[in-house]
């Protein structure tokens, strides 16, 4: 890392999540610094998505805390967590299928206040201006992610790779501080994967803080500053890509072949 350490933006503090007897996540702790990209890897079932669900508010943790800056956010409902600045994408795409591409992005744009919402319903001139402005911003975001020209299509009609990028755009729409990406390149061919890596790099360039769950080591090695390795719900290792790659227990756990090819 060059220069002074950036501030800590997201802290996972000894988080555990048990479902009855099943210990999905046990005592996981790590910090995420501003504008850095952290990879979260581990075999299937190691608790990665569960951890995302805890961070994003879909689950309350059985133990532990999640902090955004100084503020404790564990246990807050998902929409509050999103408004505080943590948004996410989903492993299995969850787009608003019958909405347009632009509509998907605009749906994620927030109101300033209840008064703004009421003005929008009644369509005051300032509300009209606001809508036009948001529409413009949405189009900019879509352009950034290579989705120009598709703004008016129903989201369901997009090819797979674009749908994933649309999810990304939508998660960006609210101006988040931290973005959680859950397997952004799952099921993609090499070209789509490459496009997605580009998109992720653009987000990094904008200064966004990212946490990425992935199995594809190429993506991890190409985008992440730090990697956290989970196994059976516990943190196995943490460090730079090189450190993790050469960590014997990680290699032993499961990496082996994938790392050799990355």
């Amino acid at each position, binding site marked *: 890392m060059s220069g002074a350490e950036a501030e800590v933006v997201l802290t996972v503090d000894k988080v555990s999540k048990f479902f009855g007897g099943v210990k999905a996540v046990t005592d996981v702790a790590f910090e995420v610094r501003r504008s850095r990209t952290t990879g979260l890897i581990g075999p299937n079932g190691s608790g990665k998505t569960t951890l995302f669900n805890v961070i994003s508010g*879909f*689950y*309350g943790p059985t133990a532990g805390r999640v902090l955004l800056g100084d503020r404790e956010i564990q246990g807050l*409902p*998902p929409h509050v967590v999103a408004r505080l600045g943590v948004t996410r994408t989903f492993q299995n795409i969850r787009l608003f299928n019958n909405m347009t591409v632009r509509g998907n992005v605009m749906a994620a744009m927030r109101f300033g206040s209840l008064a703004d919402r009421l003005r929008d319903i009644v369509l005051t001139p300032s509300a009209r201006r606001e809508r036009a402005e948001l529409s413009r911003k949405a189009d900019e975001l879509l352009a950034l992610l290579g989705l120009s020209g598709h703004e008016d299509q129903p989201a369901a009609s997009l090819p797979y790779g674009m749908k994933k990028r649309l999810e990304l755009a939508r998660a960006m729409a609210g101006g988040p501080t931290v973005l959680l990406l859950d397997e952004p390149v799952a099921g993609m061919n090499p070209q789509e994967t490459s496009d997605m890596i580009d998109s992720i790099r653009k987000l990094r360039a904008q200064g966004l803080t990212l946490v990425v769950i992935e199995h594809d080591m190429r993506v991890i090695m190409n985008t992440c500053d730090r990697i956290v390795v989970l196994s059976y719900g516990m943190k196995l290792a943490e460090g730079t890509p090189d450190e993790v790659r050469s960590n014997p227990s990680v290699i032993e756990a499961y990496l082996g072949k994938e790392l050799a090819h990355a």
Partner: protein
Amino acid sequence: MGTQIAQLVVNGVIVGGIYALAASGLTVITGVLNLINFAHGEFYMLGAYFALTAATALGFGFVPYLLVSMAGVALVGVLSERFVFRPLRFAPAVSPLIASLGLSIALQAASLVIWQARPLRLPGILEGVVFSVGGVSVSAQRILVCAVAAVLILILQYFIKRTWLGIGIRAMSKDLTTAGLVGVDIDRVAPMCFALAGALAGAAGALVGPLFVLQPTMGALMGLKVFVLVIIGGAGNVTGAIYAGILLGVTENLVDGLFASRYKDIIAFVVLLVVLSFKRESLAGRD
């Protein structure tokens, strides 16, 4: 006072037995097939009317009209499964609920057309015989009702535990896919479940026939209450349905008798809301 309470409790148990009988059939459908059937009350109502027709038009005695009634409603159940619920097997969960509401209305209306709204009564078989123990009296008719209900429920329990169909049903309620893999054919089990539920509901109707005046709307409130019992007792849990049924019967009777309350029918719905509010944590989107 004590005698009064005892009498209320005894009457409540009998009513509860009927609730339990109707609820145990519905809980099988809800638990195994994951269906909410709002027409179940109408199965009960049809049971009473089929029994009436068998008794008056065909001159059947108690056991024959009971069996006719059970068979008739079982058939209605099978037809309902085939033409109302099966087409909606893959539709969103609300669809079968709405369709069953439609079925409920249609069956009520059909009965209204066929039997008119004339208040009719099933002749009882033990008219006039009353037993008294320590100030608490029960008519023989009511005892018979309770006894038959108990027998049918026991048969149901045995059936579910021992026969291949029963085991198949239990397997399906645990995991539909695995059950399918192991050879349980849902297209055969589903109609069976409905036949079972129909037979039991029909029996409940036929049994209460002699006790109350028959009306096409008699199933409406019953259907809703029985549904509440299924939720309280746990979908698929026959024992739970039984306890819930008896509990509701006794509570309603006590409230009605002790407080001269016209609101006894509300109890079931208030309990429903209370129970639903406890289901919250698993349903509010935080899985």
